[in-house]
């Protein structure tokens, strides 16, 4: 996903571990470029030896579409991590995708249903906030991302180094999902999507009002509304929106959604209600938001029924299936309307009509005149520029790496991030490697005695004006690092202390007796050396801190005093 949307697949090497983040396909291609280039990882053979784990952030095909290809056709047997909802929904979408490519387009050399099943057997489900120990050193943790049901951000940690990968996320709660959240985990690198790197979207309420108004107007004048959707995600949000609107306005026109996947999808939402937003979770016992009163299953024959109706039909880009069939039936009537709630890939009918094409060539040389109204409305749940900045503020990363966006927009965001946070920001292209050097501190076990003594000496509050220096000995043995007081180190290592003393003699003339001389020296030193401990000891010595003074004289020359000064090595 380097400087590009689609085919998300990122390889992270951290502390000697290799992790693959997402394994997606590109919707816009039908050739080899559809899947990531796995030969980039290893030229020959299986990926199992090279990868420690694979993590899938959510069930969209541009994030998991290449998974069976990677695990079954290229060869990978290690763990694949994803959340429960992703694990539940992802195989259905993969199977759907396979059917379209193999059965409809007749492609061979593609993964089979069995491969999808085998691939899913390698999946280890991931719970939010659970710390999963992949091996002794590598741990991963998932955070709520809000983009679709079960979307997650992941933190990958080896020792003191860590990386956070956001997948796709959304920082504003919508009608059925909550907002992404992460704690202040201060990762070394934050890998974030940047689909809407330059946009700050207008308020969601406005877009919703707009949408409802258009639907309502069409219904009022007796027209039919077609909403081509993908089975999961936006469909549910729009269903909730229409459901509540119908209830409030007391509308009678029927709403249908095409049978099969969408219906099943609602069921998934019901069972994974803990992954939806606060409001839905709170009220689900009294009223499950995904049990729609006004929305009924669609039957093919209903399309010809007279009178207004709203139909949700799959797929979302009008390239095949039920949505296209209905579109063909309704296209000729200008009273009708089609609302495209998402992005359409080039070449699809959806893309053509959005570009204002009025005559479509159908198979069998027939042309279709498009008279109905065409509306585009983006309900895509990605974070906008504001949201991305908000997440950066939340996690406080040391470096940022932008993926899943267009190069130009990324460059703009990169500048903005570097300006505002003063941290380095990267935006590698596909196949490019970015290396970030970390500067980890060294964990050491300190003896509690030493630490407590030091903390007691430091007083209850640290004093920045008077830094205290602590002294200790670091013992390095096998693989352990322990910091202890020097005395303890001697004891532990079975060493005895070596005393190093120095002595020097000073001669001076003094007529007094030895003891008097000493007292005179004592009182002099005491007056000169303020702030030092000067002591007169009973065994006729004077101590200045640790320096010992002694006075002696010989019998022959009682006036020539010899002052012995003796001190320890400091």
């Amino acid at each position, binding site marked *: 996903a380097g400087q590009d949307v689609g085919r998300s697949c990122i390889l992270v090497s951290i502390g000697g571990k290799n992790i693959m983040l997402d394994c997606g396909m590109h919707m816009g291609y039908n050739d080899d470029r559809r899947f990531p280039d796995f030969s980039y990882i290893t030229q020959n053979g299986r990926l199992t030896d090279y990868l420690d784990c694979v993590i899938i952030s959510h069930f969209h095909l541009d994030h998991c579409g290449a998974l069976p290809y990677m695990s079954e056709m290229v060869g990978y047997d290690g763990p694949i991590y994803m959340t429960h909802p992703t694990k539940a929904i992802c195989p259905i979408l993969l199977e759907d995708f396979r059917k379209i490519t193999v059965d409809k387009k007749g492609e061979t050399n593609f993964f089979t249903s069995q491969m999808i099943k085998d691939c899913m057997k390698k999946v280890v489900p991931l719970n939010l906030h659970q710390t999963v120990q992949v091996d002794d050193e590598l741990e991963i943790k998932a955070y709520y991302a809000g983009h679709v049901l079960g979307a997650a951000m992941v933190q990958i940690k080896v020792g003191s180094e860590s990386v956070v990968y956001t997948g796709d996320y959304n920082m504003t709660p919508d009608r059925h999902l909550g907002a992404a959240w992460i704690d202040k985990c201060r990762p070394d690198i934050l890998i974030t999507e940047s689909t809407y790197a330059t946009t700050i979207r207008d308020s969601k309420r406005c877009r919703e009002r707009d949408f409802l108004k258009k639907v309502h107007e069409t219904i009022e004048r007796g027209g039919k509304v077609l909403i081509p959707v993908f089975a999961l995600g936006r469909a549910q949000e729009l269903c909730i929106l229409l459901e509540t609107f119908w209830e409030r306005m007391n509308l009678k026109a029927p709403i249908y959604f095409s049978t099969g996947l969408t219906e099943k999808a609602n069921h998934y939402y019901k*069972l994974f209600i803990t992954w939806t937003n606060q409001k839905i979770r709170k009220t689900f016992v009294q009223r499950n938001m995904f049990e729609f009163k006004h929305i009924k299953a669609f039957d093919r024959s209903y399309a010809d029924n007279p009178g207004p109706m709203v139909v949700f039909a799959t797929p979302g880009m009008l390239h095949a299936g039920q949505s296209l069939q209905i579109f063909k039936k309704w296209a000729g009537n200008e009273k009708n309307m089609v609302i495209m709630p998402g992005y359409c890939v080039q070449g699809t009918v959806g893309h053509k009509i959005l570009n204002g094409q009025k005559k479509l060539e159908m198979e069998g040389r027939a042309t279709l005149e498009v008279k109905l109204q065409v509306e585009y409305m983006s309900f895509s749940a990605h974070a906008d520029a504001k949201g991305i900045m908000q997440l950066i503020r939340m996690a406080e990363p040391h470096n940022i790496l932008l993926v899943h966006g267009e190069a130009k927009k990324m460059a703009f965001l990169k500048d903005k991030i570097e300006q505002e946070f003063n941290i380095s920001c990267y935006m590698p292209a596909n196949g490019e490697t970015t290396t970030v050097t970390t500067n980890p501190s060294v964990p050491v076990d300190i003896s509690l005695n030493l630490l407590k003594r030091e903390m007691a000496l430091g007083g209850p509050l640290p004093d920045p004006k008077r830094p205290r220096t602590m002294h200790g000995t*670091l013992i390095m043995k096998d693989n352990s690092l322990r910091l202890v007081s020097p005395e303890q180190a001697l004891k532990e290592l079975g060493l005895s202390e070596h005393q*190093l003393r120095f002595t020097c003699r000073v001669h001076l003339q003094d007529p007094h007796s030895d003891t008097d001389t000493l007292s005179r020296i004592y009182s002099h030193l005491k007056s000169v050396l303020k702030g030092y401990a000067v002591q007169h000891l009973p065994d006729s010595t004077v101590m200045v801190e640790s320096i010992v003074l002694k006075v002696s004289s010989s019998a022959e020359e009682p006036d020539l005093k010899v002052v012995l000064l003796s001190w320890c090595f400091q």
Partner: protein
Amino acid sequence: MKLYCLSGHPTLPCNVLKFKSTTIMLDCGLDTTSALYYLPLPLVHSPRLSKLPGWVSKDGTVNLEKELKECAGRVFVDSQPEFCLPERELLDLSTVDVILISNYHCMMALPYITEHTGFSGTVYATEPTFQIGRLLMEELVTFMERVPKAQSATCWKTKEIQRQGCILIVMLPGPLKDAVDVWSWRTCYSMQEVNSALSRVQLVGYWQKVELFGAVQVTPLSSGYSLGSSNWIIQSHFEKVSYVSGSSLLTTHPQPMDQSSLKNSDVLILTGLTQIPTANPDGMLGEFCSNLAMTIRAGGNVLVPCYSSGVIYDLLECLYQFMDSANLGTTPFYFISPVANSSLEFSQIFAEWLCQNKQSKVYLPEPPFPHAELIQTNRLKHYTSIHGEFSSEFRQPCVVFTGHPSLRFGDVVHFLELWGKSSLNTIIFTEPDFSYLDALAPYQPLAMKCVYCPIDTRLNFHQVAKLLKEVQPLHVVCPEQYTQPPPAQSHRSDLMLELQPPPVAYRRCSVLGLPFRRRHERIQLLPELAKALVPSEIKPGISVATVSAVLQSKDNKHVLQPVPKPIPVPPSKKRKRLLEEVPELLTPKPLLSGAIPLDAFLASLHKSGVTEVKVEETAGGHILHLQAEDALIQLEEDATHIVCDTNEPLRATLRDLVLRFLHKL
């Protein structure tokens, strides 16, 4: 490290652990067995209960006829039932930093702890524990508030009565003799207090590492007992305490127990073992089904007093399969509780917390529990109470699941009054928390059949012994009840914990000093400091380096930074200040170790230009006379003495030579 034990009930524990600088409360169970001393609270007026004679002591000196009533030869308190709280005087509850909840049965005293005590900490629980715990509290409050009692009896608790009333105590159900804490018994909390208490809960997931003040890390582990039930690991970098509470190794609906994470604990606190160690849950389930079938076939009704969550899910699942095979597919099940619907709904949305085979159902997508199908096919119906729809819709014979298992309040009271007189009907006890004889006491004489099949899936002594052998904790702490066989089966030495070293036993109000000492703490050396260190090898494989650094302690995290370079102070001004600071910056005497080999030392002396050396042997070593320089060096095994007069450069040279042979520490 200290452990304060606030509850004597082994399966409803409440302990407080003081570890490092944190105060952690482990569970706060509410002992509701005290309700057994009270008269049942009927939902509709019961002439039988209202006509009971008051109690007056035989000699007539104590008259409590308003508060105590005689029923079927026993004396009961006629009042709103009260519950036995965890001890609140042993330590100041406002100092508790966090409360860790292991399962929803062990959080029922939460409002008593968090409200009106000055508690200002955080409560950690998993989402199912939180949600179902809330339902159970809500249910309890509704049961109590639905049938308000005009009077609340307090006279019987007063000291004089208790002292005089030895007779009374004898006449009350046996265990009241032990129930010395009657003063601390309290009536139920209000919904407002529940909400306020629950607002302090922070949700956690299994294996989520939660940092407490940077000092301690706590982690909940799956315990296999109920939805979202957990054991807790409380650890620092060097010490590990495991808290095991209500765990199960049986395959029921929850996620299986994680045993391996409990390994290498310094202390393992063990609570919540099975209360019925002699009964096998599978056998009990079989007995439950066969008794149920027998009653229904004979045209009677079955009453199952139970909690609104937990074993009921397993019972429904078991009956779902059993009823069809027993040809009783048309018998209706009724689940009556203010929270029946919520409980059934919630059970279906916690797929992540369920066992593997239930989890995989969600992927289809199908509801994990078969009771969804029972509801859909109208075989299981749920009602908030016996009032309203239920009375018009209910058909007999039927099976009724309802609470409360103490038989003192809730809808179950009504069914006992209704069905108790017919021997066709059966009451089947499945909850192990209450003695069924005591529970039934105020309903005697009873014609209804009674079957006791307690289902307690928690660990039994055999399983616990195996578990402890596996995880090898250094010390085990447990309630005193586990260190001796149950009083009723005193010969069964297999129904107790036998360990080497013996477990540390606690009882209510014990304060235990846990037997281990902390020796180390984790500290971070900043990379700049680490780079500046100069290690030297002292012994093969062991290197040392002296570290002089500034210690920074923040949020219980310690960091060593390099010593900042002293800022040059202009010498003229503030001379006094400078003088003051000098001793502080002085490094203390470094410790030296090692010995100085004579020959090598002489050689190096020679190299640095000292040639005239006279060596004299002494008792402890050698004395070197440096004749040209008029200096003496006294070499001993662990001491060196350099005597030289005013020649400073010479002294420095000699010092450096000597130091070359020694290690600084």
